[in-house]
């Protein structure tokens, strides 16, 4: 029953795309591509819910040999444990809702059908990534989602900014993927297989157990980190994060689906999947990357005015959280936050989408796009591009305000999401997941007595506060106060029901309903992590608990008995105090997080609603800090500076809001190639390589000419040659 279900889940969206593609070849198109894709998605959704019952917590391999050569076989198959199914549900659910939303949002776009076809293709790739049981399969899905994101970001490719953004996204993630591929090479060289767990002895997870206790782990740590590189690229972690904000050039539903809920979360999912092979070293690296990302992105988000960018940076920061959780060994907490975040962040994006739509997004959009089309008459001959630093008016929060009366539904739902992300206690899912992470990190720190994780806990806490601050900043600037731009305000109106309904559904999901799954320990079992350094220090029990049960509400309940009995497997007394520590940690974390969140909200209320202090004055007071945030820590300038030239960096200093690593790299390489390298090639390829040949040819020719000159035409010279020849021969061979 499992296989057919999965097949349906995978095939429905694929079919939806295939129909579009094939008809496209015949210069036709299916009358209602939108309905087709949506229905396909809903079917997949239903099937994933059916799977919920089918699957037992322990993974169960369903593999077929994909390629077999001699001893080595590459199996393709499904690795179905509870986590997989939950991911399936999340993806299909969000995807369906986005489909529905897009019916309203994308209405009237010239490439309307194609949009849905792309969405279907994306959903397929994402689902494939989620279910495959081997690195090769994951990598395939991995690259395919990358492709879809490329296509969808560049959906309005007439805009140069969009064209650049999509290329940037693809290349940036590709850099990470190469790292991932090298990691795969290392694992393959060691284990002669790429399947994670195929039921038999020779899955990577089983084989990695064999390494327990053996000192030989450096390569494993490196491999783990390299594979994590892929996640860094896809989940926009520092330092490869800069593509995600640019990705907002794509239509808003895309941002909601790909760049908030699913694809970017794939990185987290991958890291979680590879949990068993993560050594302490790699874990620490991951934790740090995550923590830093969380903080950096949050701080940048404070000063943005483009509503979508704010959300983008918030996404980056939240992803950082998840990475941090996994790095700290809180496997469940990380994935839990992934799910909750998927819902409320999707909601936020769709909400912002509805706001933008309210400002006649599309039309405004199109005029504007044509306008700037004429401006830079396709000047993009280098890989560098002059980024449109101006924020599109319909996304600029400075044009908004007081919308809550205009569009109550949007306002209400977005408020829920905001409360959820800011971690307002108990009633909202975000609180539980975020708290689980904080507790997990703190607990980890206390168990290991490692200063690193204490620091990380601090960072996470700070980030939490900032998150609350900037999220409410967004809410206040958008929905409260007086309209700043009257005529735009007058145009604004509540979105049609196709767009509102998904908002409502997501709002409901932002309440702690998902907890039921995650708190059911029979359902979700974290995989064991084999600490190869053991017996250096204590075996660490992966943290399954997501907050203590003492806070009312039955469906949050896990009895401590269960918890204790779960650790029972390992030597009890160590497990017990591990558990005790974690319990303590969670209590501390909870209190702190509530305080911090409260502070954040309060501050932003004072700043942006009561206007007790003015943001501007603060900005001027702490201008260096402010500039730092405003310029996103000069990441791009830094890369460009390194890779292109320091002089460029100076000129761009404040004007440049964008540019990126890979644009930097490729641009660097591009310029270098065309100037130095092309000169080099021009020289090397034509002079040296080609030249040698030509030189030989010329010499041959010259020789020909010489010999001609001997042929004077005077008979007596010929006779001289004859005589000379004879004499020469005799002399030479006489000597011999």
């Amino acid at each position, binding site marked *: 029953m499992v296989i057919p279900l999965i097949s349906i889940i995978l095939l429905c969206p694929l079919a939806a795309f295939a129909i579009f593609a094939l008809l*496209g*070849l015949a*210069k036709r198109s299916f009358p209602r591509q939108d309905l087709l894709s949506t229905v396909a998605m809903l079917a997949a959704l239903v099937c994933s819910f059916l799977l919920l019952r089918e699957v037992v917590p322990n993974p169960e391999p369903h593999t077929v040999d*994909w*390629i*077999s*050569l*001699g*001893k*080595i076989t590459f199996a393709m198959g499904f690795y179905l444990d509870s986590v997989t199914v939950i991911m399936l549900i999340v993806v299909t659910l969000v995807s369906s809702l986005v489909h529905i939303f897009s019916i309203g949002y994308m209405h009237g776009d010239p490439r309307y059908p194609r949009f849905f076809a792309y969405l279907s293709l994306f959903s397929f790739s994402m689902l494939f990534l989620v279910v495959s049981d081997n690195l*090769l399969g994951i*990598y*395939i*899905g*991995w*690259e*395919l989602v990358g*492709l879809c994101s*490329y296509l969808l970001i*560049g959906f309005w*490719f*007439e805009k*140069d900014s969009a*064209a*650049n953004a*999509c*290329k940037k996204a*693809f*290349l940036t993630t*590709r*850099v990470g993927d*190469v790292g991932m*591929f*090298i990691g*795969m*090479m*290392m694992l*393959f*060289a060691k284990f002669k297989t790429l399947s994670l767990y195929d039921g038999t002895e020779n899955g990577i997870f089983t084989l990695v157990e064999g390494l327990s206790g053996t000192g030989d782990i450096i390569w494993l740590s490196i491999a783990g980190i390299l594979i994590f590189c892929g996640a860094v690229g896809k989940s926009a972690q520092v330092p490869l994060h800069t593509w995600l904000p640019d990705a907002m050039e794509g239509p808003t539903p895309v941002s909601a689906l790909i760049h908030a809920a699913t694809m970017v979360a794939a990185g987290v999912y991958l890291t979680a999947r590879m949990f068993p092979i993560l050594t302490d070293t790699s874990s620490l690296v991951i934790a740090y990357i995550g923590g830093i990302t969380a903080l950096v992105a949050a701080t940048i988000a404070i000063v943005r005015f483009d509503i979508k960018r704010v959300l983008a940076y918030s996404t980056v920061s939240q992803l950082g959280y998840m990475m941090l959780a996994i790095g700290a060994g809180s496997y469940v907490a990380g994935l839990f936050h992934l799910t909750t975040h998927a819902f409320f962040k999707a909601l936020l994006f769709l909400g912002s989408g509805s706001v933008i739509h309210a400002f006649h997004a599309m039309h405004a959009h199109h005029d504007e796009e044509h306008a700037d*089309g004429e401006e830079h*008459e*396709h000047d*993009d*001959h280098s*890989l560098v591009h002059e980024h449109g630093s101006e924020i599109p008016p319909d996304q600029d929060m400075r044009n908004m305000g007081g919308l809550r009366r205009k569009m109550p539904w949007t306002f209400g739902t977005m408020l829920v999401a905001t409360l959820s992300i800011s971690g307002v206690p108990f009633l909202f899912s975000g609180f539980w997941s975020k708290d689980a992470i904080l507790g997990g990190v703190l607990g980890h720190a206390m168990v290991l007595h490692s200063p690193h994780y204490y620091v990380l806990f601090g960072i996470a806490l700070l980030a939490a506060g900032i998150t609350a601050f900037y999220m409410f900043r967004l809410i206040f600037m958008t929905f409260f106060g007086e309209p700043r731009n009257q005529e735009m305000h007058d145009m604004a109106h509540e979105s049609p029901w196709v767009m509102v309904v998904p908002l409502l559904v997501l709002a409901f999901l932002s309440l702690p309903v998902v907890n039921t799954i995650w708190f059911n320990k029979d359902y979700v079992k974290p995989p064991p992590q084999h600490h190869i350094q053991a017996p250096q220090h204590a075996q660490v029990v992966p943290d399954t608990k997501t907050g203590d049960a003492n806070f009312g509400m039955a469906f949050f309940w896990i009895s401590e008995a269960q918890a204790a009995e779960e650790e029972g497997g390992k030597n009890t007394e160590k497990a017990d105090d591990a558990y005790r520590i974690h319990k303590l940690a969670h209590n501390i974390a909870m209190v702190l997080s509530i305080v911090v969140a409260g502070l954040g909200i309060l501050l932003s209320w004072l700043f942006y609603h009561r206007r007790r202090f003015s943001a501007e004055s603060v900005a001027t007071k702490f201008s260096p800090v402010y500039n730092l945030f405003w310029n996103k820590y000069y990441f791009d300038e830094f890369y460009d500076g390194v890779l292109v030239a320091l002089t460029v960096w100076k000129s761009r200093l404040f004007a440049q809001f964008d540019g990126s690593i*890979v644009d930097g790299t*490729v641009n660097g*390489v*591009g310029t270098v*190639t*065309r100037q130095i*390298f*092309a000169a080099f*090639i021009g020289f090397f*390829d*034509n002079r*040296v*390589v*080609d030249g040698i*040949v030509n030189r030989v040819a010329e010499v041959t020719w010259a020789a020909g000419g010489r010999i001609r000159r001997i042929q004077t035409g005077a008979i007596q010279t010929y006779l001289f040659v004859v005589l000379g020849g004879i004499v020469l021969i005799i002399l030479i061979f006489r000597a011999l």
Partner: protein
Amino acid sequence: MLLSLMIFVPLLGMIVVLLLPRESEELIKRVTLLFTLIPLLLAVVLFISYDRSTAGTQYFVSVPWIETFNINYHIGIDGLSVTLILLTALLGPICVLASWRNIEKGIKAYMALFLLLETGMLGFFAALDLFLFFVFFELTLLPMYFLIGVWGGPRREYAAIKFFLYTLFGSVLMLVAIIAVYLNSNVINGIAAGARTFDIPTLIERAATEGHALADRTFQIWVFLGFFIGFAVKVPIFPFHTWLPDAHVEAPTAISVILAGVLLKMGTYGLVRINMDMLPEGMAFFTKVTEETGLWGYSLALLGFINIVYGSFCALAQTDFKKLVAYSSIGHMGFVILGLAAGNEVGVTGAILQMFNHGVISAMLFLLVGVLYDRAHHREINGFGGLGNRMPIYTGITTLAFMASLGLPGLSGFIGEAFSLLGAYERFPTLAILSTIGIVVGAAYFLWTLQRVFLGTLNPKYEALPEINKREILTLVPLGILTIVLGIWPHFAIEMFSESVVELTTKIMGTLQANL
């Protein structure tokens, strides 16, 4: 018999075409198409009826030809050759269709030469007699010279003669090697016994027997070099590659397709068939680092790496669409060399897969370039822009081809590259890791091209550019399907040659373990 039929049907077709009156062009085209479709049919039959479970050659025919030198007309196919034969036979009709409209003058001669060329290529992949092998190898030269030289672009004469001279130079060295092999083919422990032979299977077997002159290390190393240079020019391997861009830029579309699709594969096929299978000792010398071989042990893998990186960077520097594709194929052939250098199952499988896939993909790319060129009459990448709006289908297919070529998983390009690298990593970790640069740069230049040609605002010059037509779609669709199918289910191709590969690699690995 079937095999011989397939090889010589195009030759027959050539004769028929020559007998037709030069005025009736449509008829000539149709006849040519027919005579290229028959081999395709036969190739498919072979492909299906080929017994995948064994490594040995099948369908072999051996008829005495020149007894004086004990030369036989000996042909047969194993998994590797049947795959490439299928590729060749498939590209045949596609190229005829591709030349349907854009060959103005001398269509008769063009088609005749093309058919001759096809016979040469098919024969080459089937030949099991070293002499026959060489004759077919050279047989492709003359038609190619004329096809580029007569129907090519402005600098066609230069390109044609350059191609000819390079290849002839290479094959001359190869000829010496062949003669040397032949003369030593009956020497055991210094005593000549029995008749000399050109029979490749026999030679392979003798080269493996202890004390046989062919089994001698130094001998194998020298002969290896002879053959290698011969094939390296065809592949082309740096630094013998400079003929390729010129030839591609000048050649008409269909010929570029054949050049990239099949002729380059002749080089790598030769490397597998001769250098690896017959000369494992030589192979070992150039692919295993010991205190004896020293740096020579890196040479082959290094060449592969250089091809990858050098080709990719050159491609990045190009602004001529066709030159870009040409350099990209230099880069991609690098993966083949790298995989072969690895010499293990994964690597070699990857290499062979890459041969086939590159054949398909580069064919697509050149066809696409041709489509654009026929409309805009130039290939300057920067001269386009925003075509994505004007010709969506064309854009779609191009995107597919580009993605396949830059190794997007799920499309055929990926598996070949991935396996070559996976295999290479076990033997040459550093070079394998460095070669991944090629992947990123590959993505860079293809996406950049995609952006400059299709994205952004439409260049007003091309408001009226017509969309790709039915015939052109027809040429592209089969290749596109292959790309996707092989991406999803590569085993469909791999099972053809996996047995042969296993046998080959066990031999190579054995040699590597042994004396070196």
